């Protein structure tokens, strides 16, 4: 339905909904449940140069309306992903967001160059915000100059648009966003998980084997909304908003905050049908809100109000 269409650099989406990286495997797992072509796009699990096992288990712990994870970027390596995982998704009408990670700038560039050459990949998502690996990930995402330098190098080797996935674990996220925009980023994904910890009362030890993990789920939604509201006013490149999205109303809220598309993460684990359900509920919600096209909502919370105010 045209009413839900949104366009972002490299991503022509029939609706603004995509599963978030790390929460959708490589698509296979959900393909048995519904037709993946209903999705606006899909972000697949992070790729690194070599295969990674990730962190020891337990890797997940529940929190109030959220969960901590410390998977540690487990993946079969970029070559395997391109050869064995991506072909499976070919039969679906589905733009692919390929999340890439690394330990060094060279790693990122190698993965970016390979991944962006794959005909099925629409855009790259530069993962500089994984809080669960010692090397790489978040160390690139907490210093604006480092993030900008990496973005620039990856842009130079990528033949596809590059989105930078920002970490909320910084003092000034707008500064990070501006830095990557100036370095040539085509878009921003935000937010990744918030660094957290839980301790088991019986053992008196952290529940996660990695001790700390990334907090996701409905619990972090207000943080994501605040940050997207702030960043979307500071940069002119589009934002894929994420962080606790679990219903159609949340999608509207993220878009009003300034997101041009919305990724659903942890909610896929609560209900594997959440993405198609949200997509089917959006038209009715827009009808109720008297909105003729979903893109009218983008940044609606801070843009000059075009709708007559109800209260005055």
């Amino acid at each position, binding site marked *: 339905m045209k009413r839900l269409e949104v366009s972002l650099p490299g991503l022509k989406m029939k609706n603004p909904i995509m599963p978030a990286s*790390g*929460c*959708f*495997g490589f698509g*296979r*797992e*959900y393909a*048995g*449940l519904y037709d993946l072509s209903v999705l606006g796009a899909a972000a697949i*699990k992070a790729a690194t140069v*070599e*295969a*990674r*096992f*990730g962190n020891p*288990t*337990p*890797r*997940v*712990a*529940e*929190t*109030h*309306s*959220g*969960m901590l*994870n410390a*998977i540690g970027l*487990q993946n*079969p*390596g970029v070559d395997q992903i391109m050869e064995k995982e991506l072909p499976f998704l070919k039969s679906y009408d589905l733009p692919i967001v390929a999340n890439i990670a690394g330990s060094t700038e060279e790693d990122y560039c190698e993965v970016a160059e390979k991944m962006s050459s794959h005909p099925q990949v629409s855009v790259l998502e530069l993962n500089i915000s994984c809080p669960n690996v010692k090397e790489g990930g978040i160390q690139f995402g907490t210093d604006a100059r480092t993030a900008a330098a990496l973005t620039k190098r990856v842009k130079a080797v990528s033949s596809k648009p590059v989105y930078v996935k920002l970490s909320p674990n910084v003092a000034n996220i707008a500064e990070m966003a501006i830095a990557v925009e100036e370095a040539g980023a085509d878009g921003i994904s935000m937010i990744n998980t918030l660094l957290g910890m839980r301790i088991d009362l019986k053992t008196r030890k952290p529940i996660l084997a990695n001790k700390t993990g990334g907090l996701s*789920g*409905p*619990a972090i939604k207000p943080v994501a909304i605040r940050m997207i509201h702030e960043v979307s006013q500071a940069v002119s490149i589009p934002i894929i908003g994420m962080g606790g999205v*679990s219903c159609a109303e949340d999608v509207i809220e993220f878009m009003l905050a300034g997101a041009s598309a919305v990724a659903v993460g*942890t909610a*896929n*684990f*609560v*209900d*594997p*049908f959440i993405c198609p359900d949200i997509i089917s509920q959006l038209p009715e919600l827009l009808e109720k809100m008297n909105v003729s096209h979903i893109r009218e909502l983008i940044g609606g919370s801070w843009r000059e109000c075009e709708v007559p105010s109800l209260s005055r």
Partner: protein
Amino acid sequence: MKKELVEVVSQKEIARHIFELKVQGNVVNEMTSPGQFVHIRVTDTFQPLLRRPISICDVDLESRTLTMLYRKEGTGTALLSQKKEGEKIDLLGPLGNGFPLDELSQGQTALLVGGGIGVPPLYYLAKKLCSQGINVISVLGFQSGDDGFYSEKFAELGEAYVSTVDGSQGTKGFVTDVIKNKDLHYDLLYSCGPTVMLKALELQVPAANGFFSLEERMGCGIGACFACVCHVNGGLPSDYVKVCSDGPVFPIGEVVL
């Protein structure tokens, strides 16, 4: 695999903190492989957030009834234990791969070893094996007699032994003590229980050939989140299997316990 709102038929506490929950729904028609599990959402809110993996204990295809046994431990299972007859439960399943049933032929003997809340999936397995003319010997391990359940039901299907850590019922000690003391002979071993028990079986019954069902903390239950991975014996350090979607049942020796 389907998601369905199934209806609670009955719920009762059958041992200390152990509940027997029966639900009815069309999805039950698909539950033909013992060792598979279901993923249950215990609330409509996000507290707690994640679904609970619960094994399939028994299935009556005619009445489309699924029996689940679970231990009330945390907030999730406490909420589940409050579900009353007629209430609906959001169930996803059946998930994972169950115990192979074609490894034995008529007249051969299967040894089923269950520990605690690992016992339930073995009941459906025992029934299936019996219906194929395979002899079933069961060894069930519990902390104490108060924690024990279903030993009579297993006894209806073949020889059944119980071990308790405190000796209040059956043999005092562990399941491995029963296997040694009773000098049990069998063709294939099937086991489900805590990893320490599986490890003990692997070490102390070295000739064991068969299948283990593993437990691991899960996120999604369908293989998407990579929370419940295990290393593969003899594989590369980066090789893995996912307990939820590659398992939970694996040939003995395939994964690192």
